[in-house]
């Protein structure tokens, strides 16, 4: 084992904030009641949920009854898409999404297309991973009931013009109720002001594990008046849309984590952008045949995604792992499906670029020393693998 511990996979999961853990503890131990129970201990649990709901609502500039607690990002995305498409199919059967969405969005949409008779438009992105708002406008049809565009991409960090797209959709529908606009904001909870009114979204997904909160908890903002068909049945919790005994400690932790990341947002963004750019510059300048994936400017403060040409990403992450550096790859070899990242391929680059892509995502614990250490060991590891490789990709793919 390496004596170093440089965790650069915050887009996958963030460590739990100790303060969040502290506020969760009573709800894991003393407050044992079921929030639906009609006694003091039950009411304590119920109160904790409602206070958390108010906190969430305040941070989103929404109303408490517009916040639904779920088990995480995947469930929120699924519920938003399957729930609203099924509940509103008499108003139209056309859905729009983009090629770089999380699988929780893409697979829910393709399921509706294949199994339930919906039509699906998947919008392309440009070479930086940006969705063109004009293309959204052109794809809108009178029978479009749902549009889903993620706020920022989890792999390449590209930030989408959500407010602009929301405005286009709002103008298009005029006095009609459809199409609804959904965004998956999981990667941006600690980055942006998520004021719902300014974003012009109708549904918004967020989760705990990307904002130093607990895993297995998430929320869905749904604008008042929207109808969703539940995915599960058997209780009146969360207004019957998401029945099942609530994860009380998780909910309390989610709200506290959201509050904390929003408080320090601006200062932390500034710090991360500096470290991010230091890492990007260091790699591009000192390691030949490297390519930055995603937009250089419209980019999450903590995301660095680089393709190391002529080598394969899984091999590199294992070499980094041995040095105590923990990162992710878009390579096929690291995925159970043996398919390379759909996000990197959507940028219009050859498969080789996707196979050699590595994602570093920074977080609260990341220091300048960590970045210096990565920049110190990385060139040697890349060189070691390149010496073993027979592949020499043409220059046009990395300049």
């Amino acid at each position, binding site marked *: 084992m390496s004596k170093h511990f440089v965790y650069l996979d915050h887009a996958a999961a963030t460590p739990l904030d100790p303060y969040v853990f502290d506020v969760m503890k009573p709800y894991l131990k003393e407050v044992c009641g079921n929030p639906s129970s009609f006694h003091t201990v039950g009411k304590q649990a119920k109160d904790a949920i409602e206070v958390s709901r108010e906190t969430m609502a305040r941070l989103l500039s929404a109303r408490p009854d517009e916040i639904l607690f779920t088990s995480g990002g995947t469930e929120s995305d699924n519920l938003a898409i399957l729930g609203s498409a099924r509940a509103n199919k008499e108003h139209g059967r056309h859905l729009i999404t983009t090629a770089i969405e999380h699988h929780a969005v893409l697979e829910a949409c393709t399921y509706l297309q294949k199994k339930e008779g919906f039509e699906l438009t998947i919008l392309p992105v440009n070479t930086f991973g940006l969705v063109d708002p004009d293309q959204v406008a052109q794809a809108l049809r009178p029978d479009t009931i749902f549009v889903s565009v993620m706020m920022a991409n989890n792999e390449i960090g590209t930030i989408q013009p959500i407010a602009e797209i929301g405005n286009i959709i709002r103008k298009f529908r005029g006095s009609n109720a459809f199409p609804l606009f959904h965004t998956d904001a999981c990667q941006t909870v600690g980055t942006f002001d998520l004021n719902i009114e300014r974003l012009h979204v109708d549904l918004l997904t967020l989760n705990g594990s990307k904002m130093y909160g607990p895993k297995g908890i998430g929320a869905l903002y749904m604008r008042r008046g929207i109808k969703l068909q539940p995915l599960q049945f058997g209780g009146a919790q969360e207004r019957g849309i998401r029945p099942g005994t609530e994860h009380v400690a998780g909910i309390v932790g989610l709200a506290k984590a959201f509050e904390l990341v929003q408080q320090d947002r601006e200062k932390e963004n500034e710090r991360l952008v500096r470290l991010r750019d230091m890492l990007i510059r260091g790699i591009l300048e000192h390691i030949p045949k490297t390519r930055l994936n995603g937009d250089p400017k419209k980019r999450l403060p903590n995301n660095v995604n680089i393709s190391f040409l*002529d*080598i*394969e990403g*899984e*091999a590199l992450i*294992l*070499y980094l792992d*041995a040095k105590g550096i923990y990162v992710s790859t878009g*390579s*096929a*070899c*690291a995925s*159970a499906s*043996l398919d*390379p990242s759909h996000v990197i391929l959507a940028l219009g680059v*050859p*498969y*080789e670029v996707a*196979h050699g892509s590595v994602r570093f995502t920074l977080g609260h614990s990341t220091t300048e020393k960590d970045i210096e250490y990565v920049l110190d060991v990385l060139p040697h590891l890349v060189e070691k693998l390149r*010496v*073993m*490789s*027979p*592949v020499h*990709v043409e220059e046009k793919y990395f300049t």
Partner: protein
Amino acid sequence: MNYQQLPQSGKTGDVSSKDGTKSWFYSDIVKDHFFHPRNFMHEDGDTSIYNAIGKVGSPACGDELRVWMKVDPKTECILDFRWQTFGCGSAIASTSMCSVMVTENDGMTLEEARAMKPQDIMERLGGLPARKFHCSVLCDKALRDAINDFYRRIGKPEKIIKEASRMIDPISKVTDHDIEEAVLEGAQTLETVQAKTKVGIGNPGVLPAVEELIRFYREKYFG
């Protein structure tokens, strides 16, 4: 009992140790070959001293292997075996282990090398994750390609074993080789092979032959 201790499952990785207490995605032998690869061809290596070369894969599909072999023309023993691999940890470790196996104990004869199977490489590596099995198949194929190249160069075409592919479904243009690849990538049933290859979709007459091949390759590689 110490309740504070973190539970560790030997089954969380794809490969687990014999006592089931430790797991990693790769065995210790795989890691050793991956971090300390044997016999690879240096960039400035002199390739002219080798009398057979083999190649398989392409960077687009995620793996590319090249091998250089020095064979004694009289005894047909493998004197030296060098390689370069673009691929994941198991692709690198498989080629490294293959190079050790064909050259140890004064080297295998080409006949012995041809009798070697991907499973033999995998066994020596202490196992590979199931979804990485195709990596050991790739280096076996590169080795066979090099053996054919040797016979081609010395003018013994009758000793070349062509792994010709046979068209199974002329409509979807799927060959037996495509079905072999699909099985190696984990497809075990007609439905999963069809999902990968589209074989027999709109041409159900070929399905019995396809099912026969799936059974054949499953037994060959996983039996």
